[in-house]
């Protein structure tokens, strides 16, 4: 996640090995993705084509966006267990109000980002455990989703449908979208001067406070970004599925956490990687259904595959850091 600048030769051995371990770990997401791709190519060579990728990565964009959303809270040492139902809620709003009454839809979606910002403030000011707060919020979003759209249905706005079914030449749209998402968030979080402050708030909050920064503000910004990317994820999802259902996003909470961890992120210490998170999301999207279908594994085991991938990657990570010790 933190690429070593070319030409800097590590001078001392402990630092060199720490940097090597980090490099190896930062390659892990790309390696897992490559492994899944090789397996697919071997099982079904025809899948490796423009059409094949468009199909297989169909749902990768909303998953990647939800993963990025989760990554922002994790960067601040928190966790969002409500992102899945939030995506579902956004989906319901997108398929109803955003189409029928665009202004109302936009206001509601912006308002929901505001709710996220408020949650960040609440968690910081009252020193609350984010797990419990967001677990409660997951019910709130689900309840609101059912109120907005009691029965599966609705329809995505036409412009959104057009956007999500865009077919660029040579490279399938999901791949371009993933590249854009990764690049934009990488620049914002890893390269800008305020991105440093956001990551620092997860790395050593006390030091940040001593340097005169407001931890309340960093928490609000991180949660608002989570809300923003949650909104984008829900909209992208509806653009693909064309209609909504209050339960449509429920699986995303776990997928998003798994994607961040798969992408080299850690739960504490502000160590996250936007590029890794997008790679992790793509890996999960590919591994969850296309790979299993090609391997003739019944869909019953799809969920287990996600769990197993997570465990395997975490085990690989432990092995790397043990060996380097």
């Amino acid at each position: 996640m933190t690429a070593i600048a070319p030409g800097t030769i590590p001078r001392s051995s402990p630092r060199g090995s720490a940097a090597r371990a980090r490099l190896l770990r930062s390659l892990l997401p790309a390696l897992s993705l490559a492994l899944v791709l090789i397996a697919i190519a071997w099982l079904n060579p025809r899948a490796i084509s423009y059409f094949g990728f468009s199909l297989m990565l169909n749902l990768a964009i909303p998953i990647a966006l939800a993963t990025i959303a989760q990554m922002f809270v994790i960067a601040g040492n928190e966790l969002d267990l409500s992102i899945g139902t939030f995506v579902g809620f956004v989906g319901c709003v997108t398929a109803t109000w955003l189409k029928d009454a665009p202004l109302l839809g936009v206001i509601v979606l912006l308002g929901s980002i505001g709710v996220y910002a408020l949650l960040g403030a609440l968690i910081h000011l009252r020193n609350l455990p984010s797990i419990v707060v967001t677990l409660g919020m997951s019910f709130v979003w689900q309840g609101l989703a059912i109120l907005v759209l009691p029965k599966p249905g609705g329809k995505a706005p036409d412009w959104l449908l057009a956007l999500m079914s865009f077919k660029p030449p040579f490279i399938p749209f999901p791949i371009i979208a993933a590249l854009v998402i990764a690049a934009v968030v990488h620049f914002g979080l890893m390269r800008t001067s305020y991105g440093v402050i956001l990551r620092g708030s997860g790395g050593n909050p006390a030091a940040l406070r001593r340097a005169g920064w407001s931890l309340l503000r960093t928490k609000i910004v991180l949660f608002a970004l989570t809300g923003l990317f949650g909104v984008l994820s829900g909209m992208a999802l509806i653009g693909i599925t064309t209609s909504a259902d209050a339960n449509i996003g429920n699986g995303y909470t776990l997928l998003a956490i798994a994607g961040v961890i798969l992408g080299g992120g850690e739960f504490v210490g502000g160590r996250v990687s936007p590029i890794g998170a997008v790679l992790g999301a793509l890996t999960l999207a590919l591994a969850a259904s296309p790979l299993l279908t090609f391997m003739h594994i019944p869909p019953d085991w799809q969920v287990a595959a996600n769990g197993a991938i997570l465990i395997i990657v975490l085990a690989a990570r432990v092995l790397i850091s043990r060996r380097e010790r």
Partner: protein
Amino acid sequence: MTLVKSLAAKPWIWSFLGALLVWLATISFTGGYGGGGMVTAALSLAVFTVIVGVGQMFVITLGPGNVDLSLPANIGLASAVAMKVMGGSDSMIVVGLLAALACGAAIGAVNYLLIWALRIPPIIATLSASFIIQSIDISYGRGLQIKPPPGFADFANWQILGIPVLAILTVLFTIAAAIALQRMIYGRSVLAIGQNIRAAWLAGVNVGRIRFLTYTLSGALGGIDGALLAGYFRGANVDIGNEYLLASIAVVVIGGTSVAGGKANVPGVWGAALFLVLLLTMLNTFGVSAGVRLLLTGLIIVGVITVAGGEKAIR
């Protein structure tokens, strides 16, 4: 007066007060009709939340980050295992219960193994485990429509003078849990770890063993709960445990156990479970929709944690 004061100082009193208020609101709505039956029904349903809630309470008391997210999947699988082992025959009830217990305990032990071996936060460990358990359950329980043995179903629904026998047994169990918490080495160790894991290790507490026991205990309680649920509802299914993820955590938090760890409250689990069950009954009586019900449940949990929160270890 002093009695009132000392009661008000107990954090669990609020959950019981809340339950009472909700009950009064409901019977005033129905004009006093069905008040007794409501209590009976609430007790029967609260039992299942209390059993997993106590397990979750011990886990949460281990300190920040400790939580068992595998309970719903665990309950689902154990209920299927119990029904299959019992196979509808009264003679196999005890064996089936033991099988469910063993299944749950094994899940808990695997949870801790993942936490320990992969050095990952309990949230992610129990989450990945629950993915796998869920798949096993779907695959194993497919088309499984085995009814519980009649004797077991009768036992799970048995009442004496309007009081469910299961509730009486669960009260005895919670009393035992409270004693274990305050007066046994195990409970003291859990409380010590929850307050300060490093200090606990340096004070000679066997941190690894206590954490292992706690996750195993939570798993085992989930297993028993699955079997009892299948008996009570006369059949197992994959989704039978779904609502217990939030419920188990909610009763712990509402019941006055500190999410920061090191401070547990057993009576509060009962009060909070009754409160939640009665709240649902009330909302159903008022005829609100599913959406409003979910919305209110969520808001109440956020509200309670906001009021109760803000007390992390003094440092």
